[in-house]
């Protein structure tokens, strides 16, 4: 057992939001909701994580990788009371934040679809720019949903729609799921049989924003842009309706007001009339209303969904869980908390970085993942113990490069460039190596990675695959190289565990490393495989 060094983060003094009785910082209020969410919470909950556990967790969550040995040593040596808050701020200000968020939002928005119209490199660059600038989330989504792809400068933002080929049902379903937290797939054909809040009219209300849009010149062209006609209505009938009654709807957000559509004069329907090889431009555009309608303050699902998704990213599960299943029969685990977070997020102008920071500062986030002795029943949705989160393929690949010292070696090589060397440049060098991790650990198109799997192909890839094995042997400045130069087995164990698992080894582990090293005929080979054993451990595979 490790000894828990309880640390006390200083209460950060915040600029109080205009809304609510914000006499206490939000992170304190979050913890109150969590404490009130389980009987005897304080008695039963795990203590706060120790410094090693916290450093690894927050670095993975906010920078997408594991800490370097130097970062670990610095953090452990720091005796400042507010060192956790300082670390959080440092990570949020660093280049790793945009990298991590770009990965996360790529998967959330594109769900591992193969590239269709917008090349991955442009898309990733766009996402990085969004998160480097901490663009407000509502503005970001407006870009995603209003860009028609015609301007090279903003084309990347159209990927959400373009790469779904503007397929009406797919785009409608995914707008509902990804931006509103409502999986209305069933509502395509009928009101949901068991969920009272998902109506067919809601589904087609969303679709009506896009039903006149099409890909110009055609859906196959890799350079296609989004164009729109001036006419066309959505019609639907329920498959359960024996009378086969046809319904129609104008554009409308679920639970929102119907758009009032202007009467267009005959002959004035188009600003640019349809003609062969001409992109038509209607006088009145339904599609242009979508971005505003979805991000409108009246549409409370919008902020609620992203708050819930960010909570899930940080805490390992949504307050509404699964995150796209928000309806009255699947209530949030902490309804008041979700409401409060949603309100505050809107009051803070959809500031994602602020939201992430508030969550990271809470005791709930900083709790240990070790189940306390005597706590037999710890439902994940009560947050008595921190939830174990599998590393995303990107986190895993990147952390692996960090752990094995591949990233260190590349960083050293870059230093020759002097002050020109940036973390972004390093990312550029490392990024291509993420490919195999994405394809093997990342699931199929349409998989947002919300569920963990450990299939045979993944395990064989980790056991024997070149993408992992190639990182093990010594190379100037990498981990196996550093370890081979250390003679004392205890010191080898120290460096090994710090580099891969971001912690000190236990006495048992030191002894095990020593035994293996003393009995080997091929010290270097053994060192390489020790690195592998740590990398392949459950402790490395999960953010704990």
């Amino acid at each position: 057992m490790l000894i828990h060094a309880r640390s006390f983060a200083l209460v950060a003094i915040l600029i109080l939001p205009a809304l609510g009785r914000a006499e206490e910082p939000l992170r304190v209020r979050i913890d109150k909701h969590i404490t009130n969410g389980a009987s005897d919470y304080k008695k039963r909950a795990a203590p706060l994580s120790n410094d090693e556990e916290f450093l690894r967790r927050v670095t993975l969550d906010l920078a997408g990788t594991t800490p370097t040995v130097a970062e670990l040593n610095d953090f452990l040596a720091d005796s400042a009371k507010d060192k956790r808050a300082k670390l959080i701020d440092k990570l949020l200000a660093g280049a790793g934040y945009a990298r991590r968020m770009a990965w996360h939002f790529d998967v959330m928005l594109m769900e591992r679809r193969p590239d269709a119209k917008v090349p991955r490199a442009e898309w990733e660059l766009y996402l990085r720019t969004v998160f480097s600038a901490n663009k407000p989330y509502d503005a970001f989504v407006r870009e995603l949903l209003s860009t028609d792809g015609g301007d090279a400068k903003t084309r990347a933002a159209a990927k959400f729609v373009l790469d779904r080929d503007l397929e009406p049902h797919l785009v409608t379903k995914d707008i509902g799921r990804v931006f509103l937290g409502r999986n209305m797939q069933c509502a395509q054909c009928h009101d949901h049989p068991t969920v009272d809040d998902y109506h067919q009219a809601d589904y087609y209300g969303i679709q009506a924003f896009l039903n006149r849009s099409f890909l110009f010149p055609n859906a196959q062209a890799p350079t296609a842009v989004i164009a729109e006609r001036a006419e066309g209505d959505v019609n639907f009938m329920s498959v359960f309706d024996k009378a086969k009654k046809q319904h129609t709807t104008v554009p409308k957000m679920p639970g929102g007001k119907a758009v009032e559509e202007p009467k267009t004069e005959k002959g004035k329907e188009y600003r640019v009339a349809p003609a062969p090889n001409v992109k038509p431009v209607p006088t009145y555009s339904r599609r242009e209303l979508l971005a505003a309608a979805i991000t409108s303050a009246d549409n409370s699902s919008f902020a609620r969904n992203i708050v819930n998704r960010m909570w899930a990213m940080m805490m390992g599960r949504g307050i509404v869980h699964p995150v796209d299943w928000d309806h009255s029969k699947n209530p949030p685990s902490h309804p008041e908390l979700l409401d409060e977070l949603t309100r505050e997020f809107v009051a803070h102008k959809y500031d994602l970085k602020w939201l992430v920071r508030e969550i990271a500062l809470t005791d709930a986030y900083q709790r240990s993942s070790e189940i306390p002795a005597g706590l037999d029943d710890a439902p994940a949705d009560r947050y008595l113990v921190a939830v174990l989160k599998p590393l995303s393929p990107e986190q895993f690949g990147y952390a692996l490069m960090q752990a094995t010292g591949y990233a260190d070696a590349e960083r050293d090589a870059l230093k020759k460039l002097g002050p020109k060397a940036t973390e972004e440049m390093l990312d550029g060098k490392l990024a291509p190596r993420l490919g195999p991790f994405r394809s093997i650990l990342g699931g199929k198109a349409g998989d947002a990675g919300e569920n963990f799997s450990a299939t045979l192909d993944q395990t064989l890839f980790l056991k024997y695959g070149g993408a992992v094995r190639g990182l093990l042997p010594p190379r100037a400045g990498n981990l196996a190289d550093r370890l081979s130069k250390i003679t004392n087995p205890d010191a080898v164990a120290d460096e090994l565990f710090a580099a891969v698992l971001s912690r000190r080894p236990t006495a048992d582990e030191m002894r095990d490393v020593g035994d293996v090293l003393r009995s080997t005929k091929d010290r270097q080979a053994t060192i390489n495989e020790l690195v592998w054993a740590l990398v392949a451990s459950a402790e490395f595979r999960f953010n704990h």
Partner: protein
Amino acid sequence: MLPCNYACRSTGHTVSRRGFLGSALGATAALGLGGFANPVSAAELNKSQKRVLVIFLAGGVSQLETWDPKPNTDTGGPFKAIQTSVTGTRISELLPHTAKHAHRLALVRSLNSVSDDHGIGESIMLTGRKPEAGINYPHIGAVSAKLLASRESALPGHIQILPKGGSGFNGGDATFLGPKFASVSLGDGKPPADLFRPANLASSADEEREAFRRKLNDRFAKSRKSAATEAYTESYTQAERVVKQAEVFDVEKENPKLADRYGRHDFGRHLLLARRLLEAGVTYVKVSHSNYDTHHENFDFHIEQLGEFDRPFAALLEDLADRGMLESTLVVVMSEMGRTPRINAQYGRDHWSKAWSVAMAGAGIKGGVVVGKTNANGTAVADREVYSGHLFHTYLRAVGLDSTKNFYPNERPVPVADPKAAAIEEALA
């Protein structure tokens, strides 16, 4: 496909893989539990495990040149019908070796599979369902792997051997049953990637590092555990057992005399590989044989393709019978559709789903029967029309399963087989 999910199972939150595995710790990662490190003898497997082999004649084999010949009619083409080991049952002369095994076969000659499209037809034949908006049904391979999986086998339960392409995992063919039951593809019979220990890793070093990894995991699991961490650690145990049996994937290990009976061509090799896999405890294997889409020169192509199919198919039935595996292994020969009775101007036959044939043998099948018939020149079903749904029920019943049961993805019942159809009782033993 319109994704309208009647029972509300979007891939997203249906089979939350974790939910699917149940909240029980010790969720399995890849395939069954328990442990045999060595290939189990066929006799031992027979007692416990039923298996399924589908031979898929891709492109659409002609029923008139195989199971339902119509010689001397306007549609019959140039080939004769020959006697078989079953008095009164005749099949095409292109299948002389298969004819000797007719007493093992149940021929269904009255299949109407509804779609003349390659992709849709394949899906109809493998899922036993017509396409439905909003739900994708799992293939028979995934269903077999899920319902028949042996606790003894470490190998994947659902394997397909394809004529070409790479080898890989996680086909989309398990749908709501989850990736655990999705197919492992072996392109040209090649083993999965990274199955064999790299040359620069000695087996002793591999064992040593595994032991170290296990110690770390045990220590981690003392205080931290979830279904996911359990699945992860378990997956290594599974992988290790598969690696130990890696040579099952290598047909070169087969006795050359035996191997020669399958022919020295791709399909022969693939069928032999299928037999090895079934013998090693794999639940379901599908082997595809291609080039049956004979819009031109139907007859030449069928001479060639069936010439490749006939001898190894007969050898396979013999081998299964000799090893005592035939009574526990269901064998099905199918396509995505049949071919038109009408012969076109290029001496070809076109797509045709209205009246064609499928052959079955082995587990639970009554040998020597013929189910249904077509009219004199094969242009329509004359008696006992069945759909792919009937076949699907029949396969399940043949391997001892109740085909009227449900799956419960997301706690909603989904019938395992189309409730509008039923098993073909006269083909069942």
